[in-house]
């Protein structure tokens, strides 16, 4: 009950921040549109929608981190958090209350991304639903990153870390804009050590029906998501006491 009330409040706070929502939903769609237009004007296969769409979906999820981090850091910087900390809510109520509203929002954002891709010419396949399901661990990962950033940073720092750094890391190291193997070396090793590229490859494998290729990529994302979710809970609980 307490967690539901808190989750409901967080949903309203996020959805009523129109600038954040428009930017979070709109920017990935604009990128999708621009890259598709570029693709239509060049003879080589640079950004085919079957590869681009899961990549843009993961890129869009990086804005979910911005949503969650912004709400938490604003709560922390206002006296509202003092009021909440003196209430009977437990640490689990906070973590779930911040996390649960963002999951349906992440799914909706990914659905919108695939719907836009379909409108731009992506071939319909029931595997789109599987691809969205495969991206759920990535959604949880980005939510957890947001929880951590919101707990540790102020709202200006959140804008820089989640709004600029994380979105760029996601874009550059995810195999979406360019094939990271073409860069090679340390860049490729770093990309492969991070979860973004694996989330995108798992999403692509699901859409393309290459089912045996899903889990080897998805495990990376699942482990990262579990570790970051645990870290978020520990850091939040520790911060509560100070």
């Amino acid at each position, binding site marked *: 009950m307490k967690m539901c*009330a808190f989750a409901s*409040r967080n949903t309203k*706070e996020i959805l009523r921040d129109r600038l954040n929502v428009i930017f979070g939903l709109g920017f990935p769609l604009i990128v999708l549109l621009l890259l598709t237009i570029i693709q239509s004007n060049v003879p080589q296969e640079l950004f085919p929608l079957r590869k681009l769409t899961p990549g843009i979906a993961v890129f869009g999820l990086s804005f979910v981190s911005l949503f969650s981090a912004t709400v938490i850091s604003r709560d922390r910087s*206002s*006296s509202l958090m003092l*009021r*909440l900390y*003196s209430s*009977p809510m437990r640490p689990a*109520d906070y973590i779930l209350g911040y996390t649960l509203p963002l999951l349906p929002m992440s799914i909706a954002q990914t659905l919108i991304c695939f719907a836009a891709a379909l409108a731009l010419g992506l071939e319909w396949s029931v595997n789109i639903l599987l691809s969205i399901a495969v991206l759920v661990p990535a959604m949880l990962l980005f939510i957890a990153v947001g929880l951590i950033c919101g707990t540790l940073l102020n709202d200006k720092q959140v804008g820089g870390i989640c709004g600029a750094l994380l979105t760029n890391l996601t874009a550059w190291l995810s195999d979406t804009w360019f094939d990271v193997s073409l860069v090679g070396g340390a860049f490729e090793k770093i990309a492969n050590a991070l979860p973004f590229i694996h989330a995108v490859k798992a999403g692509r494998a699901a859409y393309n029906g290459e089912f045996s290729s899903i889990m080897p990529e998805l495990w990376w994302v699942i482990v990262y998501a579990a570790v970051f979710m645990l870290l978020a809970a520990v850091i939040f609980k520790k911060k509560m006491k100070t």
Partner: protein
Amino acid sequence: MKAIETRKLSKSYGDICAVKELDLVVNEGELFALLGVNGAGKTTTIKMLSGLTEPTGGEFSVLGRSKMEDIKPLINVSPQETAIAPNLTVRENLEFICGIYGFDRAESKARAAAMLREFSMEEVARQKAKTLSGGWQRRLSIAMALISEPKLLFLDEPTLGLDVIARRELWHIIEGLKGRVTVILTTHYLEEAEALSDRLAVMAKGRLIAVGTASELMAKAGCDKFEDAFVALCGGGAAV
């Protein structure tokens, strides 16, 4: 029953002692003011008693309970700055607090409606909290602290930064709480403390300097005006 009892309650941040061996008793139903200059330890005391920070020494009980999980359902806090959810409406803010105190939907709606009436906020019920004036936001903040029907309410600088009219309106609201709720009030406005409180405590440098009614404190300091008594007690620094 005693609403609050502290025994040698202390809080240190490294070498800095914010509250030192505080022995304090507040009776149930009292409107009790904690006074002191900046850094006296008032807010730290409230933070310890409301579970926002852990004491580094001593112990305390609230309404006979000493575990925070038993205490929290019985208390509520109106922090120094306005503590509202900016993008929720006034009514939603009230229902939100009911929800986190465990009331079901129907009960939350009924309590919010009653609180809107009591605080004359019906005309702004659908307005987002961030669009309210400072006075109305503070009024909402106090209503949010009262909607859970706490047995003990902490009001930390409730009228800070408000104009005279808004302050007087809040005084009226706070006076209306007398006898219903035990209120711990911190304020820098001495006339406010004198007018509203049953008893007052003066803190300086983390220590309790004096406690009593306004007239008792004036008699103790040998002053005719409460402000002079406060200055004398703070400047004197002698233990109770």
